[in-house]
């Protein structure tokens, strides 16, 4: 049995790639080691409640019919209609630093006016920065690393404003500490600050259900609980995979969303320096279910990015969690037609992956989770109203959880600091898509799958 394309990983990129290929009549097999689909953006049920794993917000919001926007391009490529994802826009988000708050909605002009109000001497520079971003082509074929910080400093002189802009962008995309590549900065600036946030009423389940139904409807084959043990190669060409159970599947091409180093580990010979190419940025998140809505407590923010100090640090911390900054997200605070069944507040903070991965004792791990989640919540009180007495259930994920369910080394949410924009590897017929190809976020992941399928598998 030979497939046209074997895809490793049924996350958003693998599913999107699978739809493209199956739609054009390829024989496609999508392999997923976990018991369900979604990868970094998955879902689960615990104590009779539904949870989303990675989803805070779907970025890249675009209205129906706004044809040039990435969201709508992606829908066209997947032959989906705008209504399929049932996206509801956010209420309002903010970046909160000591003595300064910038509010933002899906109307970018609010942020522009907030900058002008809080940083009058930077307003002109900010407008020129935005113009430079509007004119920049992040997909141009340019080599080498370009520092986004250096670019920003050509326009802004106030480090507080610089940090307040970097805070949401780094938190929602960066596999590298404190700075990121300018191309990625531009993509994320557009996707979260200019286009903005939305969410389906049902969360990530809605998007995944639409994708898997489409994939199967086009004749794609999905195998859950089916891990890949090894990529088979002969004379520098990949020709198939050996599964965990020893079975061999042959394919004309292999598209891997497992990650750069994770994919390398499936191959006979290494092609990148493992230590340098393994990501370091991971998070702990506490998900609290409340007995009332966040709005009842006076909290209306969709996503709040905060830093307790003006000098925002985005790096692997030396402590189990980094209490200097964080993200507060409430899935209830979107413009839904009906209120959600559960009321939740998620608090996320940078974490030291080694601390979490090295706890051997299960009881100790549970204790550490609880202790640090409590500290994260206490730390956020003041920025959100005190909701501690309203918590009726709680779940916590750590770098260990991420590693266990996604296979990402170090539980690195944004994968490797080294992105392979071309998607190629030294092996012929083995390509990468997903986080380590370079497009991030839910929409970015799907675009990665689509563009790699188009470029390498549809010829």
């Amino acid at each position, binding site marked *: 049995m030979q497939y046209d394309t074997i895809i490793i990983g049924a996350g958003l990129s693998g599913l999107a790639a699978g739809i493209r290929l199956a*739609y*054009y*009549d390829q024989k496609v097999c999508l392999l997923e080691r976990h018991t369900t689909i979604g990868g970094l953006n998955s879902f689960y049920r615990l104590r009779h409640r539904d949870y989303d794993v990675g989803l805070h917000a779907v970025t890249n919001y675009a209205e*129906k*019919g706004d*044809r*040039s926007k990435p969201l*709508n*391009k992606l*829908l*066209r*490529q997947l*032959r*989906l*209609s*705008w209504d399929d994802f049932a996206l509801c826009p956010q209420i309002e988000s903010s970046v909160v630093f000591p003595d300064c708050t910038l509010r933002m909605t899906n109307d970018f002009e609010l942020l522009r006016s907030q900058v002008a109000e809080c940083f009058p001497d930077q307003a002109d520079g900010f407008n020129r920065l935005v113009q430079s971003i509007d004119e920049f082509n992040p997909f141009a074929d340019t080599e080498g690393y370009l520092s986004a910080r250096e670019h920003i400093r050509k326009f802004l002189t106030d480090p507080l404003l610089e940090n307040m802009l970097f805070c949401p962008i780094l938190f929602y995309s960066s596999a590298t500490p404190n700075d990121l590549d300018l191309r990625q900065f531009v993509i994320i600036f557009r996707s979260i600050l200019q286009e903005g946030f939305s969410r389906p009423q049902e969360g990530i389940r809605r998007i995944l259900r639409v994708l898997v139904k489409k994939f199967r409807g086009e004749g794609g084959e999905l195998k859950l609980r089916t891990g890949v043990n090894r990529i088979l190669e002969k004379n520098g060409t990949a020709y198939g995979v050996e599964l965990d159970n020893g079975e061999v599947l042959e394919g004309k091409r292999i598209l891997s969303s497992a990650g750069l180093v994770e994919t390398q580990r499936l191959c006979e010979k290494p092609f990148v320096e493992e230590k340098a190419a393994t990501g370091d940025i991971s998070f702990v998140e506490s998900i609290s279910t409340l007995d009332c809505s966040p709005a009842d407590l006076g909290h209306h923010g969709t996503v709040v990015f905060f830093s307790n100090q003006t000098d925002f640090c985005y790096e692997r911390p030396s402590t189990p969690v980094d209490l200097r900054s964080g993200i507060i997200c409430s899935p209830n605070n979107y413009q839904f037609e009906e209120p959600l069944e559960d009321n939740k507040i998620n608090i996320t903070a940078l974490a030291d992956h080694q601390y979490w991965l090295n706890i051997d004792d299960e009881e100790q791990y549970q204790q550490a989770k609880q202790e640090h989640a409590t500290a994260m919540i206490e730390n956020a009180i003041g920025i959100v109203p005190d909701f501690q007495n309203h918590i009726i259930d709680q779940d916590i994920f750590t770098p260990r959880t991420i590693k266990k369910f996604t296979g990402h080394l170090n539980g690195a949410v944004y994968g490797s600091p080294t992105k392979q924009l071309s998607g190629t590897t030294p092996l012929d017929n083995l390509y990468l898509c997903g986080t380590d190809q370079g497009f991030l976020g839910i929409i970015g992941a799907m675009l990665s799958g*689509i*563009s790699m399928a*188009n470029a390498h598998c*549809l010829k």
Partner: protein
Amino acid sequence: MNEEQIRLVILDILDKIAPDEDLSDLDDSQPFRDQMELDSMDFLDIVMELRKRYRVQIPEEDYPNLVTMDSTVTYLHPLLKDVESPA
């Protein structure tokens, strides 16, 4: 298929590529791109759809023939004249 039937097939493909577009006022003599902002990914899809449906292979050097509805129909007619209309 005659020319009118081919035109309907192209309209159907465009509708599939861009389900939210209103194609009722499409001008057959004007480039698709001016009326629908099709990017290169979408354009490739017209070619791929024709291949999927009718096994017609369109070489890259012939892509300029697919700029407007009129030129597309003219180009495809000899290739599809013996194919039965789907409708």
